[in-house]
């Protein structure tokens, strides 16, 4: 819960939702590519904002606690260091899941908002779903307003209330939007929502979880700035993994080793599969999930080993 209560994470999540919502509303003359742009932008915002959220949450939950002395208080209790480390990762995971759910729903709704060619008895031509767009933009404000009321009335944490309410509001918007077509008539749910985007969001979420594990492992020995810098470097190197180490891996053992050590983020970016109405194959999804699980497991093991011998000042 501590991770969810960090104002920075709430602000980044709300900004991600708003930017994702705005993109399809400001696009003009895209030759029918609005949906793709909204979808790709949504996934990109999901990844970029998620990078900051997972990195920051991992750093603040361990590195900051180690330097501020909070970790010392907790570890003076009967808490095993490995358990403490893994609990921190679990906390970050909850935050990443919550953020990812919000980001993923926003992408679904942004794609729904985007201009598309409609041809039926009442509509003919390119139509932007302004209703869905307005509801999507309104969701963070409604969540903040309700969280403010809850904070005023029941003295509950504004941040955590707002975070959960943001998710709740987005779910409501998704359901409402999914039950009506662009003309405002009732339609069976899912007819106008592109659920094939969800696996893309799941893959980005897996990438964020791997990244969070890397940041948390660095946090056991480094302060926030070096941790964020190294995690960022890992991200950039991982994006270029195929280019830098792919060829090298085919030629030498060192190359194979480097290729294996550096996380390959290309595995997690499957927006191309979604082009022209395509879907992400389940084999790709499962393969990447196994890769993410194995990589995260290995990084967490190293993190536990490092944390066991770390000195808590």
């Amino acid at each position, binding site marked *: *819960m*501590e991770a969810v*209560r*960090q104002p920075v994470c709430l602000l980044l999540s709300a900004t991600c939702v708003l930017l994702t919502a705005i993109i399809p509303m400001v696009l003009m003359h895209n030759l029918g590519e609005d949906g793709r742009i909204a979808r790709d932008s949504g996934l990109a915002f999901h990844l970029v904002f998620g990078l900051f959220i997972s990195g920051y949450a991992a750093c603040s939950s361990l590195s900051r*606690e180690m330097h*501020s*002395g*909070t970790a*010392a*208080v*907790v*570890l*003076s*209790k*009967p*808490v*095993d260091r490995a358990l403490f480390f893994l609990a921190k990762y679990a906390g970050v995971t909850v935050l990443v899941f919550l953020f990812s759910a919000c980001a993923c729903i926003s992408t679904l709704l942004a794609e729904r908002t985007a201009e598309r060619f409609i041809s039926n008895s009442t509509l003919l031509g390119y139509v932007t779903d302004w209703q869905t767009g307005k509801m999507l933009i309104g969701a963070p404000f409604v969540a903040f307003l309700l969280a403010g009321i809850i904070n005023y009335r029941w*003295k509950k*944490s504004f*941040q*955590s209330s707002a975070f959960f309410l943001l998710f709740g509001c987005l779910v409501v918007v998704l359901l409402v939007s999914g039950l009506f077509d662009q003309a405002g008539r009732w339609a069976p749910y899912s007819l106008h929502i592109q659920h094939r985007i969800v696996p893309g969001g799941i893959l980005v979420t897996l990438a964020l979880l791997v990244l969070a594990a890397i940041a948390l492992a660095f946090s056991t020995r480094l302060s926030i700035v070096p941790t964020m810098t190294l995690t960022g470097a890992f991200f950039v190197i991982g994006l270029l993994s195929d280019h830098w180490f792919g060829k090298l891996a085919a030629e030498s053992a060192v190359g194979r080793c480097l290729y294996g050590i550096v996380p390959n983020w290309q595995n997690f970016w499957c927006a191309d599969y979604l082009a022209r109405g395509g879907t992400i194959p389940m084999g790709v999804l499962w393969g990447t999930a196994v890769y993410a699980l194995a990589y995260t497991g290995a990084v967490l093991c190293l993190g536990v080993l490092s944390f066991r*011998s770390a*000195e*808590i*000042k």
Partner: protein
Amino acid sequence: MNEKPDESVVVIENLTKVFKDFWRRPKVCAVDNISISIKRGEVFGLLGPNGSGKSTTIKVVLGLLHATRGQVRVLGRVPTDVSVKERLGYLPEESHLYLYLTARETLDLYGKLFALEKRIRKERTEQLLEMLGLVDAADRPVGEFSKGMARRIGLAQALINDPDIVILDEPTSGLDPVGCRQVKDLILTLAGRGKTILLCSHLLADVEDVCDRIAILYRGRIRAHGQVSDLLEERDSLRVTMPAMPPGLTQEVLKLLKEKTGTEPALDHPAMDLETFFLDVLKEASARSEPGSRPAGERSVADYLRPGS
């Protein structure tokens, strides 16, 4: 683990702690070859100026830092043993708590770390909040607390498990005189129940009031140690306290003493210390302004911390 009353529950032998820089080169020797043994039920004070190695010693005892040389045993075990920590309570120098949790949530969280039952956690939380005067602030985030309030909630978390060994790092730092007195009374109450207290402070009056034995650290080394009474006693002088006498009789006694001893005796009226005077004034003012209310500084000790509980 049943300890005999005079058994040492904390044993530090030839402890040296050297902090290293990024390149693993020695940077500073915070603790240099110190040996301390603390018996069960004892209130032991570690004194010293800032940077003398007090907090470092405590953190090695808690298993948070690793000794460079020497060894530490707490309840007969290495301090990194998790089971030892079930019987420890630790108040750090600064109250490092989760800023977004409320006071009640904070105590509940620390109670959970000791696997206390929900009912016990709730009882103790309420008792500690009442004892430390935090009932009105129980549902406020700890991040909004003043330094004194944060100190109190820090003290509460250190006592949530009713520990056998309480390690207090500057416990009265940031507290008002009423809070200081309350903490000192609490230490004496805990000691009365057979708890072992390791107190670390640079406030000499606090240490003098509550400690049985002390060690004075300076630049990582012990410069003096022993019973407080032994260390402070001036064996070559004597004080006699008695009710006030008529002026003539006083002069006669002084004259007699001068004749017999050959030295000039000093005469003065015993004075109460400022803390006692301050608390008396507050007590009186409190009783006068709110008849029937409990005077400040007289909040009860939590039931589960009372003698016989």
